[in-house]
């Protein structure tokens, strides 16, 4: 399986270099602090606030995970190796996506300890909204990663890739707020495109199939575009 070969290679790259460890350390620090802060100020056995904040911290972390995926291969001439091997652009993109998504899931998994801490002090903890919150985070992650992967295909500079994915994701995150200013169908439309608007129902315990379809479609579109950009490098 050539896709698995790419996945394996990407995971090696993450964990043989300090990148993954630094991201895990920074993420744990920030999320730990936020969990403590929220618990101390609300005194509620709920993960809702923590998961909200977790989504935003993951939005900040994802561009760092995705920035080098393709751009580094372009810069160091290894793209020449991949594109002259019997492997399609789609296989390269899928392999890279899966590897990065796996690292994202591990990162997100760090926060499970806080749910366990809560449940050890509060046996009646409501796991429903926590489960739906994590479903939301998983879908959100797929969207973050596929957009970041796309950004990484358009440049051979990692910093530019990171800035594009950070700027783009933040725009998709905030765009829903325009409904308060516009108060018309345009505002409605923007709020339907917003990652934040789509996500916020999940930690509240609502799993809406429309939202699931949105996240899946959003991811597929960017993965498709990333594949096309990679192919066009070959035929340009």
């Amino acid at each position, binding site marked *: 399986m050539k896709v698995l*070969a790419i996945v394996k290679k990407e995971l*090696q790259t993450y964990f043989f*270099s300090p990148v993954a460890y630094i991201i895990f350390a920074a993420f744990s620090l920030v999320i730990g602090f936020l969990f403590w802060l929220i618990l101390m100020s609300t005194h509620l056995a709920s993960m809702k606030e923590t998961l909200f904040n977790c989504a935003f911290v993951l939005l900040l972390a994802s561009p760092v995970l995705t920035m080098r995926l393709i751009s580094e291969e372009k810069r*160091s001439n290894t793209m020449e*190796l991949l*594109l002259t091997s019997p*492997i399609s652009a789609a296989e390269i993109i899928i392999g890279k996506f899966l590897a990065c998504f796996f690292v994202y899931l591990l990162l997100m998994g760090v926060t499970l300890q806080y749910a366990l801490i809560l449940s050890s002090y509060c046996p009646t903890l409501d796991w429903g909204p926590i489960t739906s919150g994590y479903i939301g985070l998983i879908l959100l992650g797929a969207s973050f990663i596929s957009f970041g992967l796309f950004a990484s295909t358009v440049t051979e500079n990692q910093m530019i890739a990171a800035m594009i994915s950070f700027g783009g994701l933040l725009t998709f995150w905030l765009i829903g707020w325009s409904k308060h200013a516009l108060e018309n169908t345009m505002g409605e439309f923007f709020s339907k495109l917003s990652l934040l608007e789509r996500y916020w129902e999940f930690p509240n315990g609502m799993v809406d199939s429309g939202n699931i379809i949105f996240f899946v479609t959003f991811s597929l579109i960017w993965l498709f575009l990333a594949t096309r950009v990679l192919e066009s490098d*070959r035929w340009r």
Partner: protein
Amino acid sequence: MIEMKNVTKYYGNFCALGGISFSVADGEVLGLLGPNGAGKTTAMRILTCFLPATSGVATVAGYDIFEDSMEVRRRLGYLPETPPLYPEMTVKSYLNFIAEIKEVPSSKRRARLDEVILRTGIGDHIKRIIGTLSKGYRQRLGLAQALIHNPEVLILDEPTVGLDPNQIIEIRGLIKNLAADHTIILSTHILSEVSMTCKRVVIINEGHIVAEDSVENLEKQGKATTSYKVGLKPAGLDWKSSFESIPGVSIANVEEFGNRVDFMMRLPDESAYDKVFSSVVGKGHIFTEISPARASLEEVFLRLTKSEESQPIERSKTS
């Protein structure tokens, strides 16, 4: 095995290849020669399906590079100018990765890995991190990568560039060894490399083929004009005239060192030698050195790739 017909490549308005045609027979080693920027790498990138040609057709092992690019890629081993390595991987995990994406079946992977490691002589370094390898070992690993799926065709872009003399000899030996069971295209701008490793040469300049012949024939062509390296203590300032008064004799690359001059002398044929010698000595000039210049590929190469002479396409093709 490899066939290129009228292949052109434009980068915007810049013409990198202006209609190149050549073919390589099964088991042949072809040298692609040319100054930097002549279009060697572009031609190779087109053959390896990395770049599309603007026009023209090319086939490898009977498969069109555009229509059946996957089939071509299965049969091709390619060493780009900079070996495509992942510095954070170990040599072994890198080769395993390449074997997987090049579709080496898992049952044969061990054997293939052992063979390329043996052939390229990297056995002592398989556990090392690639980033810590020396340039010579990176080059060998690049070759190992190109060989792992046992391709019929090898395309090597300047395989010895940047290596020290010992490493160059080793890599050349390796290429000779590989020539026994592979069809190889090799690009270089080092001439001695071609005469050591290739049977046939295509010389490219500014995107055009300026010569295509066997190494021996090209060397003969170089000997057709006889050149000497000459050192002289001239008796007067008009020393040049005593050479140039004899028809067909020309001098070039004059360098002065105090009372001595060094230059290259080209004679129309061997018989002019006596005439020149007696004429020059008769005028009181003193020879300090006369040695036959390496009449070789170098001369042909210089003649063919000098820009003012590149336009008339010279093609001496012998059977």
